[in-house]
């Protein structure tokens, strides 16, 4: 149920984001979602793509340092308080979140939350136990690309 997330190191200066995105677009690889974390000096681009192994190869061949991380996707109702409820569950279980990002779908009433947990396996157990919906790779593909 875990998803593979690709992370890339980028320098924080104009034009650095475009190149890796172009490289994977050229190979026809669709990006399901992405997030960018940055400091004054550098940034980390995090990507969830349809064919992560192919994308990783393409990026590495083009010279990027790529890191592979397991993340967990949860869908919640896209309405005020939806995220807060999910977070309350995680907090109550004492799960440590390294970082997270979210996106809402074009269609439907759901928002997808992507979590980087310290311990993703335990997190999935807790989420399922508490009745939250963990989205796996195939499902994410189908809801995103419809």
């Amino acid at each position, binding site marked *: 149920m875990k998803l593979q*997330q690709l*992370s890339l*190191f*980028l*320098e924080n200066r104009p034009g*650095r984001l475009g190149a890796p995105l172009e490289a994977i677009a050229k190979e026809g690889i669709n990006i399901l979602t992405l997030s960018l*974390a*940055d*400091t004054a*000096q*550098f940034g*980390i681009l*995090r990507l969830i793509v349809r064919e992560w192994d192919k994308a990783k190869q393409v990026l590495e061949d083009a*010279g*990027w*340092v*790529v*890191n592979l*991380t397991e993340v967990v996707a949860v869908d919640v109702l896209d309405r005020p308080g939806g995220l807060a409820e999910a977070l309350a569950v995680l907090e109550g279980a004492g799960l440590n979140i*390294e*970082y997270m990002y979210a996106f809402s779908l074009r269609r439907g009433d759901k928002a997808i939350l992507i979590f*980087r947990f310290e311990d993703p396996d335990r997190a999935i157990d807790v989420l399922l136990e508490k009745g939250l919906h963990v989205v796996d790779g195939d499902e994410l593909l189908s809801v995103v690309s419809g």
Partner: protein
Amino acid sequence: MLTELWNDAAGGFHPASAPDFLPETALKQVQLRRLRAVVSLAYENVALFRTRMEERGLTPDSIQRLEDIQQLPFTVKADLRDTYPFGLFATPMSDVVRLHASSGTTGKPIVVAYTREDVDVWSEVMARTLACCGLHRGDVLQNAFGYGLFTGGLGAHYGAEALGATVVPISGGNSDRQIMLIRDFGVSALCCTPSYFTYLIERAAELGVDLRALPLRAGIFGAEPWTDGMRDHIEAAAGIKAYDIYGLSEIIGPGVASECSAQQGLHIFEDHFYPEIIDPETGEALPDGEEGELVLTTLSKKAMPMIRYRTRDITSLISEPCECGRTIRRMRRIGRRSDDMFIIRGVNVFPSQVEAALLAVEGTLPHYQIILTRDQGLDQMSVEVEVTPEVFSDKIRALEDVRARLAKAIEHILGIRVGLRLVEPRSIARSEGKAKRVIDRRNEGA
């Protein structure tokens, strides 16, 4: 008559400066006599030197003329490191009255030693240095070179006392107090690194102190390379004459060579330090006027004689007479070195030291580049390091931690603050052959 020059009243020369005016034949006699003595001393007491002499079939008697020095083996910085700490001493420790140390290539310092006589010679050549810069009894010299293991502070201090000047032994740093004492003590001369002085100029302006309106008239600058453009700026902004002096711990410290009022090259105190210029590739001696690597032999050092020490500094010797009247030869100001060592804030830095730190943190050596800049007169060093798969993480905090550990490791080895920037893989230019590790932008726009 020379005796007229020996008047140490204002404008005259100190008696210690007499050897600066020796006729060439007399100078050469002194040099040959001292060369033969120092070669004997080293041959009899320094195992490394004796072995190298024997390998070449040489004995001290092989030195019959000054030119015979060209047969002698070179000494290099690695020899000091390999024999750390006391392997090149020629006298027992009971005759050594002082040790100094400077940064080395592997984190281990280079150790140098002085007998009582060596300290006297050092005081003499530093007195001659200060006299060369127009100082005399009655001057107040603020000594902002660092006191301690670094040779700059104590070298200038003893020289100023030998000259009869008044020393203010403030050492480096504490800029506001530096400026207060320049003003309150009527300081007429100051010595420090040129980059530190340009900072003092800025700071004085911020404090509303006009250095041009004070008695300060001479700046004696050394321990790092600086340009004519920087000199023009210093002279105009502080209303002083800025003199370049040269020295290195391995030879004695400051006091090897100094500019005079003509500011056309630095007079080498060659009755104590015999200069040669060699082709850095072949080791062949080059005639005066040709550019090459400066090689120095200490003619009178007792505790740690240096025979044909390769300084790695590129310059040329000027044998034409100087308008100041001194007969000792001059060398042109040092513009570059034959290795990739650089000097920042008075500290010798080899890229290999930075490499050792990067290697210690990462396990493998990443591509890196050292960038030197000058910000408000202060030299800054920053290191750009390409991110490798081994250290890359999807977490910002982990990368910040890597960055901090790299910076700390470098600062620990060098003892100075450095900036550290993580950059993308393959973003540092790869050159054919030798990598260009150091980008020096300090003189751009200076």
